[in-house]
């Protein structure tokens, strides 16, 4: 049967969100709105030390002075910050003694997400720190990680048990005043993940967290801090799914990575928050600040597969401070219907012999808009810095848009910078080639899209690549094999 691009585009428009279900359990909610009392309430709820409360209040003071950024190539109705609930936690009477005690409904939710604990523990050897709304409810493999001295826990737990580490590193890469949403997050963050890899330790498994927005009207303000001490290695996975909701939900997370001398952090994200229905109604606002700091000889690698959210505003960045450090950014962003994504990276070269690679692949279908916005900055002291950027866009509908806004700033004459970008649709000659060889048009399109994203998908850890492929399949359903 013949299969044309128009049919594909139609299918893309018609398919609805697969993971749109809501679990019914009561939440422990704070009243809507933001003010000092709410911040004190959150802080008290979490039994936080005084310094952290002060940090929050200071960030809130700064936030009040700031205005929402408007430079991104996205259009949306601004969130009403006084109508958002800044704290909601699944109601818990007691801590779970064992896995069997966990609320069966919650187990069911996890199963739907395809991350059944038992299976994961048995088969994949992956430790999962699962965040239901804003509070983490279960952690596994702790014992094994403990042996190596690896700390992997929820952010609130880290604040209680390792305050010295949290205090030392929190806000050093993304200061509380960095930008509007980072300041908001610093003031009201409810939980998140904390990870510390001690000197010279190679984390034996992939660490992963699943985020999930659950209560209607709940803002999600996560904070992730990953510290890789000298000579250590960690691969960290983050994946998100959100249930179908009509009102827009705000997600403003902060992720800080710190790679000390000779350390390596690999941070992979699969994001499929609810993108809104095919008329552009609803969907998640994803305004995330992600940044990593590289010390001498260290390496930070960001890999992201973005298929969800109504509006995405996200620039995972690397500050290449130490000599010989390496930053990498691999991204696939798929937008459909009325989704808008403005995403990219910043590579700030400060140290000598620093290297960065940027591979960004955008696919726009329906009425969506997909922008790459990236900065490569070579400072005067960054001798022999090297950058390679490639940003490709694939357009699948005549109502979609693909935009490229690269910023290249070079202050050093020994630097070598290359940037290239292309925008096109799937070549008719490519499809013709496949058809000639007996591959149906549908399969051909799938093949081409898969091949187009392969450079990025290859960067994902094995366990995650499967899920990423699953997501791409859902996003481009019936078209990719």
């Amino acid at each position, binding site marked *: 049967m013949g299969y044309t691009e128009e049919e594909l585009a139609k299918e893309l428009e018609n398919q609805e969100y697969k993971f749109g279900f809501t679990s019914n359990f009561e939440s422990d909610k704070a009243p809507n709105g933001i003010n000092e009392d709410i911040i004190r309430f959150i802080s008290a709820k979490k039994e936080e030390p005084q310094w952290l409360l002060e940090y929050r209040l200071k960030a809130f003071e700064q936030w009040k002075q700031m205005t929402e950024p408007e430079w991104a190539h996205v259009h949306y109705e601004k969130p009403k910050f006084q109508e958002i609930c800044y704290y909601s936690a699944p109601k818990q009477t007691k801590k779970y003694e064992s896995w069997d005690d966990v609320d069966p409904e919650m187990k069911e939710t996890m199963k739907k997400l395809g991350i059944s604990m038992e299976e994961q523990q048995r088969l994949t050897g992956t430790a999962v720190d699962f965040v239901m709304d804003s509070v983490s409810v279960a952690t596994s493999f702790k014992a094994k990680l403990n042996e190596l001295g690896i700390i992997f826990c929820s952010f609130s737990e880290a604040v209680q048990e390792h305050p010295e580490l949290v205090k030392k590193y929190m806000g050093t890469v993304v200061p509380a005043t960095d930008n509007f949403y980072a300041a908001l997050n610093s003031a009201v963050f409810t939980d998140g993940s904390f990870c510390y890899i001690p000197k010279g330790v190679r984390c034996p498994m992939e660490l992963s967290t699943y985020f999930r927005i659950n209560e209607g009207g709940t803002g999600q303000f996560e904070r992730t801090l990953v510290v890789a001490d000298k000579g250590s290695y960690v691969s960290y996975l983050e994946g998100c799914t959100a249930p179908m909701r009509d009102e827009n939900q705000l997600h403003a997370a902060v992720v800080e990575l710190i790679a000390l001398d000779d350390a390596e952090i690999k941070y992979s994200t699969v994001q499929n928050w609810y993108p809104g229905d095919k008329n552009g109604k609803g969907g998640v606002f994803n305004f995330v600040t992600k940044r990593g700091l590289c010390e001498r000889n260290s390496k930070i690698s960001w890999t992201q597969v973005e298929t969800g959210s109504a509006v995405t505003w996200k620039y995972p960045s690397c500050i290449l401070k130490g000599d010989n450090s390496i930053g990498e950014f691999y991204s696939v962003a798929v937008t459909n219907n009325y989704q808008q994504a403005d995403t990219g990276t910043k590579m700030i070269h400060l140290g000598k012999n620093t290297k960065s690679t940027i591979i960004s692949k955008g696919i726009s279908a329906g009425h969506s808009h997909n922008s790459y916005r990236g900065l490569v900055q070579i400072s005067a002291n960054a001798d022999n810095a090297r950058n390679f950027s490639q940003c490709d866009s694939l*357009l699948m509908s005549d109502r*979609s*848009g693909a935009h490229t*806004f690269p*910023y290249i700033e070079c202050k050093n*004459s020994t630097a070598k910078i290359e940037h290239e970008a292309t*925008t096109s649709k799937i070549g008719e000659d490519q499809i013709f080639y496949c058809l000639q060889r007996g591959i149906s048009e549908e399969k051909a399109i799938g093949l081409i899209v898969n091949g187009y994203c392969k450079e990025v998908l290859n960067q994902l850890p094995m366990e995650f690549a499967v899920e990423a492929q699953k997501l791409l399949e859902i996003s481009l359903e019936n078209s990719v094999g």
Partner: protein
Amino acid sequence: METIQENKVIQFTENWSQPDNLSSLRKEARQALNGMDFPTTRVEDWKYTRTARITNKTFSQQPTNLAVEAYKIENLTCHELVFVNGYYDASASTILEDDGLSIEGVETLDETAYAELLEDTEENVFSLINKAYSTGGVSIRLGKNKKANYPIHIIHVITGTSVIANTRHFIELEEGAELYVITSYNSTRAADCFNNAVLEGLIGENAGLTIDKLQTEEQTVFNITKENFVQDPSSRFLMNTITTGGLLVRNGVNILVEGTNCHTEINGVYLGRDKQHLDNHTFIDHLFEHCTSSETYKGVMDDSSTGVFNGKVIVRQDAQKIEAYQSNGNILLSEKATVNSKPELEIYADDVRCSHGSTTGQLDEDALFYLQARGINKKSAQKLLVAAFVGEVLDKVTHDSTRAHIDKLFLRKFGWEF
């Protein structure tokens, strides 16, 4: 009643006189300026270029005349239109016999028609100042299916101290007309002068316009120029900008492609030394399908100079089958040189082939070694490689006399021989 608020723009222009002609356009421009301020680096379009260096100074209009022989292009028979400090110098100009071509003062234009022709073009604070206070300019018109016998060379010279020259020219090519224009910006050993020029026009159906722009002012002169052109169906536009002079140069080329089957090509070479700041902004707006556009800008930055390239191509919805290509190459010859490059694409149609590339680096070590191994000293080898690098763009200047003139400029300024 026009009310004008106290602001920097008003202060900047307060001592200037306004000629009586084109009064409604000038009034409109002054009204638009009302409440406007000079751009800071927080304004995205001026992110890399500080205009405070210009706007903190005071300039005045100083009509004068001088010998312009030195600025003419050798072995080129052409219409020569001379503007000294922004004023037309009739005695130094030569207008030859050319059928179908009319060259008149810009003030002879019918104001309403003029305003209508260019209503879609973009203005910024400097082009508005130019509109309100322009002291001279030509209106060039070429009739249907005419090919001009001679090229037109518009010679701008600035001389004196703290002089501002506001020139504004208009070119209109009727259906099928064909014209070659050279605009050169020159200066004597002038101090703190400011060339604020605008060149705009309309290229009719099937018509073709070629412009070579040469900027060779002393390194005490500021230069902000804007070229606004509207292209009708099946027209061709080619512009080459060669920049070697000026302390702070900002070129803005805005092309509105308002028809199918058009071809647009803008190229540039910028060579910076000492503390020069050379900024090239381009904007191509594809409103209709089946068009091609190509941009090649190459920069060589030495000493503490700064090069800026910001190219933007927009392909509007339903403007299918567009092929747009943008390339920017930069070579840094010195530790203190800076390059900022921002090639942008905004695409709203799917059946397009758009690409851009930007590179920043240094001369190829292997190539240098190869040449040195063959007995060419390092300096000559470097020159040879730089010449080859910018040669790709210079080769787009197809007129022999102009090309020879450019080569001579390079020889004079850098001791380069191609």
